[in-house]
């Protein structure tokens, strides 16, 4: 046994994020940690990493008790962590990012650049990457950045490697390299603690699985022989209605027409039509350019060429307000930075997109705003004490519901949802699916961008697939299968190795 937590607990004021968790992790195993949003996974990891101080309990590693709440002590004890949020230093280059905080030095203070360089090359080569020195990390792709973060974690001679949703922004190729690296580490006796909402990955990688629910430890058992349904039941504590296909309503008139839209270098010659009552799924690998297309349709980015028509009328390019006025709504992928104003209240966020139309004579009507907010909170089943609490205090799933509800309040004619369920747990996910279907049934034209093939397959009437900035194919719901979507999405020459499932 490598690491053992005894009765580990953490409270934030009255919120009990983690309650008396006792888990042991064995050397050389991949130990998966799963649970709904807010179950306490990241909290558990932050305690291991020494980022937060436990309220109760203790951690021992290799038989010795770990000093609580000290990042340095955890590091010294051989715990390396890749955190959920990006921890990159955008202004520094890859080399500095790999070593900052534990730089190899000469004479006590001066950086030992040659050693850093050699070591950095070796680390990245192990992940199939090359070292890009001198370029600030901001200039690298998201995936490259994530690989640097992983390499940083691997640079420590660690006994336990902790990964909190590491694959969220990785494409199949990088996932493959990561899984290979994980297997090499476990073969060498290193333990890996792995957090992910992608249950397929868990089943493919993990030796044992620990389930958390509402901060409590539910169970830990061997992964062999478990099914996805077993995991879900254990996480949620009840059966979850798996999404059956809703009957496709008869599609109406063309609502949104996109004609030869291009914005180099992100996407080229994108054309499609979206009808009233229709749900189109837009699939593709991360970085295929789907979010960019959505942003251009919404007017947040100015395309180089092409046009966007709503109800037959062309939208002025690069004008969000005109797009909104025409009835287009976008729930962006990055809800924390683009979708919500986190410090403002739930109520304020819900009316933000309709502020002007609720006002009379240029003066806000508070009662009308309150009514809209209350209506959306009810319709979306948003769990919050009151509309007056800051959105920041809500759990991820409920934040996402606010981001969607804010646009439903505007009664859009075209709704674009970019990764509507990323980082959302199974229960909340089912609710969001139900909602999207009922809105479509009501005549809303919906475009759903998702990297989750199950989601795309389950929701869409039609599926468009993007590859490297172009639409590589269209599949009807009858023809669509995971394999066919993937075949269209994968770069022609790329290896399929390591893709899950």
């Amino acid at each position, binding site marked *: 046994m490598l690491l053992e937590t005894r009765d580990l607990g953490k409270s934030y004021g009255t919120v009990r994020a983690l309650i008396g968790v006792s888990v042991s992790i064995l050397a050389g195993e991949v130990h998966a940690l799963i649970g709904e949003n807010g179950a306490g996974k990241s909290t558990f990891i932050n305690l291991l990493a020494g980022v937060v101080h436990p309220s109760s309990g203790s951690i021992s590693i290799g038989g010795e008790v770990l000093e609580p709440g000290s990042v340095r002590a955890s590091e010294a004890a051989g715990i390396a962590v890749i955190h959920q949020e990006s921890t990159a230093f955008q202004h520094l280059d890859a080399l500095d990012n790999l070593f900052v905080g534990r730089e190899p030095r000469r004479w006590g203070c001066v950086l030992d650049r040659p050693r850093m360089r050699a070591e950095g090359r070796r680390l990245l080569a192990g992940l199939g990457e090359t070292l890009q020195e001198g370029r600030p990390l901001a200039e690298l792709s998201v995936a490259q950045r994530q690989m640097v973060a992983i390499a940083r974690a691997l640079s420590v001679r660690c006994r336990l490697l902790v990964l909190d949703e590491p694959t969220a922004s990785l494409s199949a190729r990088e996932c493959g390299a990561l899984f290979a690296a994980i297997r090499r580490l476990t073969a060498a006796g290193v333990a890996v603690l792995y957090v992910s909402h992608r249950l397929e990955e868990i089943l493919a990688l993990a030796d044992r699985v620990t389930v958390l629910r509402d901060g409590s430890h539910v169970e830990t058992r061997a992964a062999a022989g478990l099914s996805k349904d077993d995991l879900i039941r254990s996480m949620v504590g009840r059966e979850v209605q798996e999404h059956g296909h809703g009957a496709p309503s008869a599609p109406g008139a063309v609502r949104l027409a996109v004609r030869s839209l291009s914005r180099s270098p992100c996407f080229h010659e994108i054309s499609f039509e979206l009808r009233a009552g229709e749900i189109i799924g837009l699939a593709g690998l991360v970085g295929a350019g789907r979010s960019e297309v959505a942003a251009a349709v919404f007017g947040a980015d100015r395309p180089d060429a092409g046009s966007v028509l709503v109800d037959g009328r062309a939208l002025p390019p690069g004008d969000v*307000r005109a797009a909104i006025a025409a009835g287009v709504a976008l729930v962006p992928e990055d809800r924390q930075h*683009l*979708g919500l104003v*986190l410090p*403002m209240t739930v109520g304020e966020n819900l009316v933000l997109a309709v502020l002007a139309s609720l006002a009379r004579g240029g003066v806000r009507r508070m009662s009308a705003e309150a009514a809209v907010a209350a209506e959306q909170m009810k319709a979306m089943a948003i769990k919050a004490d009151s509309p007056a609490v800051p959105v920041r*205090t809500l759990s991820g799933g409920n934040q996402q519901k606010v981001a969607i509800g804010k646009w439903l309040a505007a009664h859009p004619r075209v709704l674009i949802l970019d990764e509507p369920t990323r980082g959302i747990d199974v229960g909340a996910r089912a609710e969001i699916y139900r909602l999207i279907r009922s809105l479509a049934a009501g005549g809303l034209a919906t475009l759903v961008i998702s990297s989750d093939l199950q989601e795309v397959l389950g929701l869409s009437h039609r599926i468009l697939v993007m590859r490297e900035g172009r639409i590589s194919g269209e599949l009807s719901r009858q023809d669509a299968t995971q394999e066919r979507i993937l075949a269209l999405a994968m770069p022609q020459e790329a290896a399929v190795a390591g893709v899950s499932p």
Partner: protein
Amino acid sequence: MKLGAYRYWHETVLAALIAALMIGAAVVDPRFVSWKTQIALSSHVWELALLAVPMTAIIITAGIDLSVGSAMALSAVVLGLAYQAGANAWLAAACGIVAGALCGTFNGLAVAWLRVHPLIVTLATLAAFRGVAEGISLGRPISGFPASFTVLGLGTIAGVPIAGVIVALIATAAGLALARTPSGLSLYAIGHNPAASRFSGLPVARLTVALYALSGTCAGLAAAIYVARRNTAKADLGTGLELDVITAVVLGGTSIFGGSGRIIGTVLGVLAIHETREFVGWHWEHEELNAIVVGVLLIAAVLLNRLFTRPTR
């Protein structure tokens, strides 16, 4: 005990500090707190108060305008030159206000469209506007405005200075606009998260330009009031005023990081600085002490506020 729910701690603390000061002053020298004295001394604060109102809104959007003092000087000089060129004094004042508005619009365009950090834009225009003022006036004062105009700076309505009435009207309007209009709420949203505001369809660029233009317009108005009171338009007026204005706004509880702040706080902040300064000047006859007291007040107010409001994170 749920102290967190009460939203006006900062204002309460400031009001208490001001009350304590006034009581102390009354004990030391009752003449200071008399209505007559206070009205007479109030003439020193109108420009500061006037500029602090738009500055509050700008800081709420996480911006800043360091050029207000210089814009005021330029407006005053334009006013003076227009008057010298034969314009009626009120028309000249209008010219000055337009000049201020143009200054502000320039700042706003650079901030909103070129997306240069406002601190940098206005740091540059801080020098540029005053430079233009010096250039077009050749450093000379312009005076000799008619009594019908100086009433704007010196006159009273029912014992209340006209300038004060103007400032009160503008502050009230701004306070209501921030609390009760869509644009007002939009400013807070922009201050917290400009990108999400844009994605919500708020007119971010337009509001930003309008806000800086408003700041310039108020600088023009402040210039008119100043010129009317001192009967002189000159390129060096308002030197260093920007720091006073910012001090008053942050003392009033507006967060320098954007997203929070209220006009009522700013009004109290202005009042606190004004009364402190005047009383220190009144009682100790040491100009230098003023600066020290105001600096301590500024830091102390932030520290006091820390005691009452727990940061939620």
